[in-house]
């Protein structure tokens, strides 16, 4: 027998407490009786006059102790293993890019699928399949092994990362008849060793060569291209690198890589289009031998509406954007702009689009202003949101801000009141600053251009390269549908909530997103960390014990223990009731009694005999 909550066994300490309470004398109540003669003759006063009661054999005490012990044991959730339907098995399959490595024939992923299928078939209980991708998801819920084997047969690895922590947490939360299942994780990279989790590490070698970065930067002389190539594993190696722009070779060279080292290749290219880098080698992982980027991406058009603001205009000027300023705005200008900056425009009603609002309150978003707040301090800055990432506002002083009151969205910077707020929905993506630039010294801090760059990137959707596995979220504006064309083919995307959302871009490559007459080209690359394919075992991980043959399940006994405790208490109560003084009515009146042989009565009998 085991206990689900062993710490509750400390409650057994109440047993000696009950004994002590039994031995201690309670405060006595004075009761007048006609005479204590018979009580004195009973001899009980010898026991009663002691400060503590002598511990005698008492059925009531024994029953109380047993009931308390059973209650304490019940709280500890006693469990016994019983033969049952079999313990459940959760198979967690790593579908990250590194599982495409071929150091295990035909690939790590295929080997994992084969082992997982075998484990599913040999499982005596229900089997669940969880696939660890950029997001963990239950592919097959608990059921027979056939469905899991079929799902495994159709499974494919992604070019993105795998959230193994999330997948294992999801598996740990599963129960079959209240019993935690056996968790088998098929991966090449174990995370922490956890009770009940068995890792089956797949992979032999960590040798790999990968393009870990392909970056472009527009300049006056064209586009500067930086390629990072990294060698994983022992021994130097020289690999051929080819760079093409719209399938036109712009660079081809041999790159010498030191052992576990990196080489950076930089070049300039003219023109715009799809830039591809490729290593003409054969190694364990092929997906990271190519990379893509977009060269010559048109700069976002930013329209500044408001009074001339030198700080704002100079900051925008250093960003890769095209800036225009106007004091009044027309619908045509709004439609042409990728981002509209409204600087101190009071209250406005926003059409679908992307907006940076400075000291301006939109009437059609869940935000209002309740006046102004003097000298607010910056207390909290969101480190998660991309707009405030790397933005240090701790030294910023603000003279006055609007008293923003929000009912949704996300507060990015907060002091006594929200200072910067972001909203994304209904075709509108907006960042609202509660204070004007001339009401603070923000423009004098290095955080200002970083904030502006982040805001422009988030609002105008200027990202041209996305890591594989990340979702694609674009404002829909007034469009209802779009088409996404990529390595996996062509899919239609419908707008929902003013946005186009593609849950995850699992395949690396070049994508074309077409919405109306707007076409956006971007690249998806495999994350660099997936190129490090060296198998990693967790402490305690390794070939698991064959526990799938254990068909026992744990049955909770706390109910029986509670029932036993109640029965004991009832018995104790009954005995206590029986031990209570009985009323005269229950015994009946005493019949008068003469002496056993009354002399007078005996005389009568003798007289009658005569």
């Amino acid at each position, binding site marked *: 027998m085991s206990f689900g909550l062993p710490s509750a066994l400390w409650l057994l300490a109440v047993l000696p407490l009950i004994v002590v309470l039994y031995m201690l004398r309670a405060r006595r109540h004075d009761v*007048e009786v006609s005479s*204590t003669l018979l*009580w004195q003759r009973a001899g009980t006063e010898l026991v009663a006059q002691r400060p503590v009661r002598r511990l005698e054999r008492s059925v009531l005490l024994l029953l109380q102790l047993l009931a308390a012990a059973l209650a304490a044991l019940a709280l500890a959730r006693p469990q016994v293993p019983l033969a049952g339907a079999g313990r459940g098995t959760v198979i967690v399959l790593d579908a990250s890019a590194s599982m495409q490595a071929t150091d295990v024939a035909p690939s790590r992923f295929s080997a994992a699928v084969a082992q997982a299928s075998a484990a599913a078939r040999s499982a005596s209980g229900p089997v669940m399949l969880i696939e660890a991708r950029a997001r963990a998801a239950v592919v097959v819920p608990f059921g027979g092994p056939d469905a899991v084997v079929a799902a495994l047969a159709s499974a494919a690895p992604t070019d993105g990362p795998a959230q193994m922590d999330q997948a294992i947490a999801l598996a740990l939360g599963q129960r079959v008849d209240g019993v935690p299942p056996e968790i088998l994780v098929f991966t090449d990279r174990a995370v922490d060793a956890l009770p009940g989790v068995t890792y089956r590490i797949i992979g032999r070698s960590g040798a790999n060569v990968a393009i870990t970065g392909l970056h472009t930067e527009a300049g006056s002389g064209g586009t500067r291209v930086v390629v990072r190539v990294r060698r994983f594993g022992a021994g130097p190696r020289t690999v051929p690198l080819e760079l093409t722009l719209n399938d036109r070779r712009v660079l081809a060279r041999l790159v010498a890589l030191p052992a576990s080292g990196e080489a950076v290749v930089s070049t300039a290219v003219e023109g715009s289009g799809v830039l591809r880098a490729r290593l003409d080698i054969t190694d364990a992982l092929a997906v990271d031998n190519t990379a893509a980027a977009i060269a010559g991406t048109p700069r976002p058009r930013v329209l500044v509406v408001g009074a001339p603001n030198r700080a704002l205009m100079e900051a925008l000027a250093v960003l890769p954007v095209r800036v225009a300023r106007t004091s009044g705005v027309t619908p045509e200008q709004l439609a042409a702009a990728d981002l509209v900056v409204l600087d101190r425009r009071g209250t406005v009603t926003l059409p679908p689009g992307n907006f940076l609002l400075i000291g301006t309150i939109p009437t059609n978003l869940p935000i209002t202003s309740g006046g102004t707040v003097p000298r607010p301090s910056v207390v909290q800055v969101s480190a998660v949101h991309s707009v405030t990432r790397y933005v240090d506002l701790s030294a910023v002083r603000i003279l006055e801000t609007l008293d923003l009151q929000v009912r949704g969205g996300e507060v990015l910077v907060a002091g006594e009141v929200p200072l910067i707020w972001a909203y994304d929905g209904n075709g509108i993506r907006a960042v609202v600053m509660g204070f004007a630039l001339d009401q603070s010294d923000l423009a004098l801090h290095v955080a200002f251009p970083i904030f502006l760059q982040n805001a422009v990137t988030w609002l105008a959707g200027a990202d041209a390269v996305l890591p594989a596995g990340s979702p694609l979220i674009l404002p829909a504006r007034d469009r209802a549908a779009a088409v996404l064309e990529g390595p996996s083919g062509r899919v239609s995307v419908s707008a929902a909530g003013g946005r186009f959302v593609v849950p995850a871009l699992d395949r690396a490559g070049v994508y074309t997103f077409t919405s109306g007459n707007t076409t956006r080209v971007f690249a998806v690359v495999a994350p660099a960390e997936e190129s490090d394919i060296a198998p990693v075992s967790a402490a305690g991980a390794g070939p698991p014990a064959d526990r799938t043959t254990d068909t026992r399940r744990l049955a909770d006994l706390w109910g029986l223990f509670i029932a036993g405790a109640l029965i004991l208490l009832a018995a104790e109560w009954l005995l206590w009731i029986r031990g209570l003084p009985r009323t005269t009515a229950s015994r009946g009146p005493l019949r008068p009694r003469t002496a056993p042989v009354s002399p007078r009565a005996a005389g009568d009998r003798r007289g009658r005999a005569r």
Partner: protein
Amino acid sequence: MPATAATLLPADFLRKLDQLTVRSRRIYRGSMRGERRSRTQGRGMEFSDYRSYQAGDDYRYIDWNIYSRLDRLFIKLFSEEEDINVHLVLDASASMAWGSPAKLEYAARIAAAIGYVGLTNFDRVGAATFSDRLHQTLLPQRSRGHILRLFEFLASAGGGGRSDLAAAMRDYVHLTPRRGLLVVVSDLLLPNGFEEGLKLARYHHFEPFLIQVLSDDELFPALDGDLRLLDRESHAPVDVTADGPALEAYARARDGYFAEIEQFCLRHQIDYLRTSTATPFEDLILRYLRIGGLFA
């Protein structure tokens, strides 16, 4: 409500008592002719014996039938019917005020009934109350007119304090020269014991008839829990944990005490009757006192 002389015994019950007589196991020499057979043989109505005629005997007592058959003169002897002395000794200590009805009230009614029977049969009836000493006494008298005084005496009985039968007996045996039936009505919850007092009575030629009156909560105490029992007479505390075993021990002590009383009375030829205040009074008088031999 305490009983009064008028309410001590109801009238219809008194009519039932008219049919009873007090019986004494021993024959005492009374001072006046009564309705009780005497050791003296003489002018009674109950034939006792024959003896040979002697000069001077009353011719009226010669049995002429025997003379006709045996040709000898015999004198018929009759038992002289004399009165006896009935002494009613009532325990009026504090413990006797216990119970519902109070034991003292119940005991007073018992004494009243015995006294009434005695007085209606021309016996001398006296009464006394005691606790740690003799309190009040009503000297023995014989007349129906004495009934009311007796009832008033018994109805007003009270005293309180501790009980000591021996001390009371020491006073009482020297108070009256008349010996006779000594009816002691008490709960016998006597710290100093009951034996010495009864022995003293026996030594002074009284014929004790012991009636023990208890209340039901003394026989079966309805107590529970950890208690400090206070003696009503001595106020001495006794700590008791009144649980099942303790009550069983009490019952054993009670039964043992009763057995001691019974053995003592049997050994010393003392009549003994134990009753509870829950016993119907008429049953006690009309049935159990007759069974016990006090009434005929």
